[in-house]
């Protein structure tokens, strides 16, 4: 686009047009970090009305935007400069891709004339991110900006959501032109499921004697929680959940048998291995949920509900596929009461048999009990973000979730370092929520610099750091599957985390005895502003049960089946 010859026409820069387009798409908050190639955009940011949060590493910005996107179901926005700024976003983009999170990523880029010349801070971020974006653009003409940005948001948020990257060369961001004519995009196509498939699903479910439903993350993403609960209430079918499906059914609901999979509950894993019809709703047969695929739910006829046709029969053949909007599909599947009373009684008996126990031996703080206490003592607006490792599994097992948006966990990618930036993203998205980040001594060091972001914006984020002086989950696997050959898992020389928090201006406390837990949790939750509770736990504590690799889900190792405790 060239400058208008008419002096009355107001000229706008590419950067201003991009920011106008962000605002038009409802963006209020962005996460990022400035640098050379993106300076024109940061220049236009001042006074634009967009609130920018400066994270202290681009990965923190991307992961905060991920959590913001999860919480709001609208694209989280992050931005960084070219080269290292852009590559530092990659983990966050991959995280959003694996968990189907709406995100729009803006990267600065060297001027178009220098593209492909190995210019300073030039990296082919478009190429690097091809496998981990839903779509991506290189902006080549300012006239395309309004349409391109609208489309980016529509793609990021529509269908199965995901990250969309906009690479923004510096000469385009500074180019001036008249505001292009703006034509709003037609609304995105909405895939309605086939009524015949819904009818077949009802019939197959109606024939079931031992039906089970897997609630997956897609239910939350598509805002179908209410429809799911009505479907569950109507059919009375027992429900299990994937990691990302936790909270779709309230944890304490009678029909909920717990999370399935590698660290799932025994009731859920026995139910799934014994069911004769399995309704999979917005889930994708991830290997951590299925265990050995060939022996997963061996006698089940599968009804798969998903918006993404590419998930159908990817890993497990679906007898019935209902492709499209989940709420519409769930509203339509009405088989009457499905399954026998004896099956529901069996599931209830398994729930009793495999109920979590908190009478752990040992004198130290038992992390599962602390987490259970936390989620049952806290107000209803508690949102927990986790890092990745043993503590993440304990949160999934022992915390109570009445709403899936109360639990933010890096599921598909398993990104250590997610918890702290995620807490930042959620707190900004939901300022009224009580946000607790549960982290470990390994994970927190992956993005410890974000304590500065928390302090800078005085975000009331509560941090529970479960410190076992080790990379606990790796240590557990080395103990169980690598003959106790411990390799690079010892973190007994950790820094003094309480002191680290204080150095960032965040009040902290350290505890190591069970008797201190109640008062410490009370202190943490009632403290004004951010606070960190450092909890020393037994380095030899493991996550139980555990389905060892290559085993079907019902072959669960328990504490007493392992060599040592």
């Amino acid at each position, binding site marked *: 686009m060239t400058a208008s010859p008419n002096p009355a026409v107001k000229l706008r820069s590419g950067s201003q047009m991009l920011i106008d387009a962000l605002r038009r798409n409802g963006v209020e908050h962005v996460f990022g970090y400035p640098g050379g190639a993106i300076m024109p955009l940061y220049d236009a940011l001042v006074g634009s009305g967009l609130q920018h949060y400066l994270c202290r590493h681009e990965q923190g910005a991307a992961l905060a935007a991920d959590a913001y996107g999860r919480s709001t179901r609208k694209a989280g926005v992050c931005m960084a400069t070219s080269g290292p700024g852009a590559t530092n976003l990659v983990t966050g983009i991959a995280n959003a891709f694996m968990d189907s999170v709406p995100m729009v990523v803006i990267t600065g880029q060297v001027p178009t004339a220098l593209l492909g010349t190995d210019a300073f801070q030039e990296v082919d971020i*478009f190429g690097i991110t*091809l*496998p981990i974006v839903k779509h991506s653009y290189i902006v080549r003409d300012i006239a395309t900006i309004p349409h391109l940005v609208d489309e980016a948001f529509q*793609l990021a948020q529509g269908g199965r959501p995901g990250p969309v990257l906009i690479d923004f060369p510096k000469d385009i961001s500074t180019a001036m032109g008249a505001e292009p004519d703006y034509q709003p995009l037609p609304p995105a196509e909405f895939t309605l499921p086939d009524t015949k498939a819904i009818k077949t699903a009802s019939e197959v479910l109606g024939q079931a004697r031992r039906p089970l439903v897997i609630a997956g993350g897609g239910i939350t993403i598509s805002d179908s929680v209410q429809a799911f609960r009505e479907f569950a209430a109507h059919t009375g079918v027992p429900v299990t959940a994937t990691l990302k499906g936790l909270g779709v059914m309230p944890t304490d609901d009678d029909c909920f048998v717990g999370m399935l999979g590698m660290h799932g509950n025994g009731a859920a894993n026995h139910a799934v291995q014994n069911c004769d019809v399995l309704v999979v709703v917005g889930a994708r047969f991830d290997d951590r949920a299925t265990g050995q695929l060939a022996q997963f739910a061996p006698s089940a006829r599968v009804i798969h509900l998903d918006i993404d046709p*590419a998930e159908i029969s990817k890993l497990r053949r679906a007898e019935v596929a209902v492709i499209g909007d989940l709420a519409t599909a769930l509203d339509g599947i009405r088989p009457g009461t499905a399954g026998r009373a004896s099956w529901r009684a069996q599931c209830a008996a398994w729930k009793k048999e495999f109920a979590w126990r908190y009478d752990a031996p040992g004198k130290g703080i038992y992390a599962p009990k602390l987490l259970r206490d936390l989620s049952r003592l806290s107000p209803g607006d508690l949102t927990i973000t986790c890092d990745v490792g043993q503590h993440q599994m304990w949160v999934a097992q022992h915390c109570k979730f009445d709403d899936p948006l109360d639990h933010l966990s890096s599921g598909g990618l398993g990104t250590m370092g997610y918890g702290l930036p995620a807490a930042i993203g959620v707190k900004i998205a939901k300022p009224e929520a009580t946000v607790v980040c549960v982290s470990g001594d390994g994970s927190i060091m992956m993005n410890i610099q974000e304590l500065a972001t928390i302090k800078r914006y005085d975000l009331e984020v509560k941090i529970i750091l479960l410190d076992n002086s080790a990379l606990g989950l790796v240590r557990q696997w080395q103990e169980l599957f690598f003959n106790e050959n411990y390799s690079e898992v010892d973190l007994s020389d950790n820094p003094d985390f309480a002191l680290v928090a204080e150095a960032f201006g965040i009040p902290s406390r350290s505890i190591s005895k069970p008797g201190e837990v109640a008062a410490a949790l009370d202190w943490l939750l009632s403290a004004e502003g951010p606070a960190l509770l450092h909890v020393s736990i037994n380095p030899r504590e493991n996550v139980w049960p555990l389905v060892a690799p290559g085993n079907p889900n019902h072959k669960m190792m328990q504490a007493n089946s392992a060599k040592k405790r």
Partner: protein
Amino acid sequence: MHTLRIQIRDNDGAVLRALGLIERRCYRLRSCVIGETNDGGRTMEVSVSSSRSGDLLKRQLERLHDVMKVELQPVAIVDGQHSAIRPLGRRN
């Protein structure tokens, strides 16, 4: 062997995106012919070998925003072997 005819938009990276997906999803690229359509789009005719389903690859390709249409050639068996690439013929 699966043979697919893919119509794509002429966007930045569209060809790479489709080829990258094919290899990443564990389909081995055996041949690829890229052409142009009358309306400025691109066509790709690819043959891939994999133990995985051709229909699944078709659905995975269809997810890409740049991909407008994917046709999967029926698998032909000649003398006990999967047939080599057969010309798909121009349809535009």
